[in-house]
Structure formats: C-alpha cells, structure tokens
C-alpha cells in the first residue's frame, strides 16, 4: 500500500469534493476504455477537462496529470496517456484529504 498523500482543502469545498473525486474515477475508466478503442481525441478532451479543473478544487496533481493525458493523446501516444491515467488512479488511491 502506497504512503498516503495528504492534501489540505478549503472547507468551503467539502460539499463538492467527494462528487468531484468520484467523477475523476469515472473519467479514468472512460479514458481507459476510449484508449482501448484508439479514440485518442476523447481521451484528449477528458485530459483537458481534468487539467482545467483539478487545481481549482485544490488538487494540483490532477491538473498536472490531466495535462499529461491531454498532451500524450494529442501526440497520438496512447501508451503515455494510459500511463498518466494510471498514475492519476494511483494518486486518488493514496489521497487523504484534510479540510481546513
């Protein structure tokens, strides 16, 4: 089991964060299935969306990995996109949130 990654999030966002993280999980599954179908454009769009929103919720790593998915998919590199999606999955597994 990986070491927990503790992220401090503004308490104001407590009502939104669980749903946001659930949706991130759903997006990862969607990226995996689109990449399996060689649909890189859909993977790029999801990566773009994750890049644009993660940091707003206080998760800079989601923005970073979303950008990596977007860039890899744009370059036609499905393997790199899948690796970034897998890293995002691992990050979510290790995530522990403290509301402050």
């Amino acid at each position, binding site marked *: 089991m990986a070491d927990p990654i503790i992220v401090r999030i*503004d308490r*104001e*966002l407590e*009502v*939104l964060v669980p*749903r*946001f993280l659930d*949706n991130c999980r759903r997006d990862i599954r969607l990226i995996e299935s689109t990449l399996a179908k060689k649909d890189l454009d859909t993977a790029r*769009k999801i990566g*773009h*969306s994750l*890049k*644009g*929103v*993660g*940091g*707003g*919720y206080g998760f800079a790593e989601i*923005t970073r990995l979303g950008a990596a998915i977007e860039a890899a998919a744009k370059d036609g590199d499905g393997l790199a996109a899948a690796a970034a999606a897998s890293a995002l999955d691992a990050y979510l597994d290790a995530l522990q949130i403290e509301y402050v």
Partner: protein
Amino acid sequence: MRVAILEDDPAQIDLITLWLNNAGYNCHVFTYGKELTRALPRESFDLFILDWELPDISGAEVLKWMRENVREHAPVIFTTARDREEDIAAMLHAGADDYLVKPLRKLELLARIDAVLRRTRASRPGDEGPFTLAEFTVDVESRTIQRHGQAIELTQKDFDLAVFLFRNLGRLLSRGHILENVWGRSPTLNTRTVDTHVSRLRSKLGLTPENGWRLVAIYQHGYRLEQIQKEEVYAV
C-alpha cells in the same frame, strides 16, 4: 449582481457557482452557447463568464455574437484551459475584458470580477454614500429619496427598485434581472410584480418626459431609465 456563466463542465459549474454564490452573486448557468445567445434578447446580466470549448458553438463565437448584437458593453471574462499567448491575445482583441487560465483560483477570480466591474461600471452612483441625480437626492443608508428637497413616501420595495434603476441609469434591464435584485430569487414571484411596481414608481417619482426622465418599457425584455434633455421632451 447577476452573472451569466457559460460552461459545460459540471465540476467547473459546481466550483464557480459555489464561490460566486458565497460571495453574494446570483449565478445563471448556460451549458450551450446557443442557449445563452437565445436568452440575451430578453435577459440582462451584469457580467458574463465564458468558457471556450462548448458542445455547440465556441465561447469565442458567443463573444463575437454578443459584441455584434448586444447594444451595451457587457463585461466579459473569458476562462479556459488554453494558455497560449496567441489565444489570450485573440480573445482580448475580440472584446473580452479579462482572460483567466484554468484551473481557476477563488481569490483571483473574485478579485478580477471586482476589477472588471469597477472598470466597466465606473460611475455607478451610490456605492459610497448618498448621491444626487438631477432633482433627486438618494440616501441609501437612511433609505430616503428626496425630490427637489421634499421627501417622497416609498415602500421598501419601491425604494429598492428606485435605487436599482438610478444606479443602472441608461441600461436595459430585464424583468428577471430587476425582480432578482429587488425581490430576490423566489419561485412564487412573477415578473408582473415588476410591471406593477415600475408603474407606481414612475408616478410617485414623476419619471416622465416633462420632468426630464423616461422610464421606458421594452417589449418582451424589461425597462430602461433614461435622463433626457429638455429639448427632447417636445420630440417625444
């Protein structure tokens, strides 16, 4: 303050509306560009926050449509994950008042909204203390309006409506916009309430061409308070 948000990503919508609602703004969300352009002929907003990538037409096209079809300069903040210098410059040249690269940050977003509103509504009377407009003296703190030095008896809602119209002199305000600012958002109220109060206020304050004022009803949209020159009176 009424804000139109054009955004199709539910996570972004949740975030922006939470921040803005908590800061006291009234948010209206549109997820399709055409949904917003269809609403604009009958609605008014104090500020627009536009995303670039949408399911139908782009935010850039919506901005272009607004600048060509909406008479008053509506303040627009563009928000997108596109961070290329060329994209930022293109949207500012196309008429956006500001551009924010996603992910958004709460304090920065609120500060930029404040700055854009300050720049575009620089001369809103009454934000700081009493103000005078022609024969009217309005004191927001004591909630009184005097005309030629004589206090006018107004209900609370009449007063709020008068202040809202004076502060937005010359702006076309939709009935929904007026309703929301004066009465708040309530499903039990309808826009006829606005018509009734506007008519009463016109008479109580003497907002007529003979007195140098016009409180114009715009079909299927709302009202605009105008101050007119004496010579225009005879042309009406």
